[in-house]
């Protein structure tokens, strides 16, 4: 008797679940759709091109306030910064006679090269990931990335290089493009010196 009642209860429960599930299934589907739409809306809200532009503008102002005028103009005009290797500091920096130097690009590896010959030495891949990930991204604005590299290089070149992944030149950068940048830098410095000599260098 008890076994029969038990079997009846199980059958009743299965039938009830079947009826309930058929009723709830559309509601569950709508609920899932709403959740997915909410997620998409949050992703759209998280990416705000205006905010990214404002962040980059702030970063550029900070960079400008930290580096010297020539370096700022170099970055503004050419899109990268040159930092002399520490062995070359004070040995004619600014005139290309230091043994080696670095080119700092935003969100790309630092390139070490020989200024006298334009020979590329190596690429140093380094990031500054912010694990707090505000707005969902760990990436600093481009100019903050450049400033972080500049501060780390000028403050403690060895420490930064030890933290970086070393690769042969050409792994991420196109060597011809970098050599072209070095040539452009030479022309830019020549023009700047000429303007300076003519007393026509004006503040940007």
């Amino acid at each position, binding site marked *: 008797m008890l076994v029969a009642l038990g079997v009846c209860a199980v059958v009743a429960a299965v039938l009830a679940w079947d009826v309930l599930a058929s009723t709830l299934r559309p509601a569950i589907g709508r609920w899932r759709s709403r959740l997915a739409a909410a997620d998409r809306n949050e992703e759209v809200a998280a990416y705000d091109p205006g905010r990214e532009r404002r962040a980059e503008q702030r*970063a550029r102002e*900070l960079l400008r306030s*930290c580096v*010297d005028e020539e370096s700022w103009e170099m970055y503004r005009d050419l899109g990268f910064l040159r930092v002399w290797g520490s062995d070359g500091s004070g040995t004619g920096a600014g005139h290309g006679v230091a043994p080696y130097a670095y080119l700092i690009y935003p969100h790309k590896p630092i390139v070490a090269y020989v200024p006298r010959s334009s020979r590329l030495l190596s690429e140093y891949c380094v*990031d500054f990931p*912010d694990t707090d990930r505000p707005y969902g991204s*760990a990436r*600093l604005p481009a100019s903050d990335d450049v*400033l972080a590299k500049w501060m780390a290089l000028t*403050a403690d070149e060895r420490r930064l290089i030890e933290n970086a992944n070393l690769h042969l030149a050409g792994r991420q950068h196109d060597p011809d493009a970098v050599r072209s940048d070095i040539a452009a830098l030479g022309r830019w410095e020549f023009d700047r010196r000429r303007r300076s000599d003519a007393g026509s260098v004006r503040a940007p």
Partner: protein
Amino acid sequence: MRLLRMKPGHGEVLIAEGDVEIAEQERELIAAFREQLDKGMWAAVPMVAPDGRRQAELVRDFGEVPRDAERVIFFPRAAGGS
């Protein structure tokens, strides 16, 4: 002295500001400084070298920050990229 932190999607953010010659404000600056280092940030002080060149100095303790420094900039520690 101002303590600034670089932030993705924002640029620099003011963490703390105060006068190191006023004890209470200095304590607040020290607390904010330590908090950023505990979060894994590097701290740099932009400065002008004796020969006039601009450079930065990485500091690991508030005591290493020059008393006349106008700002300390915190940024995420370097990690090898791909």
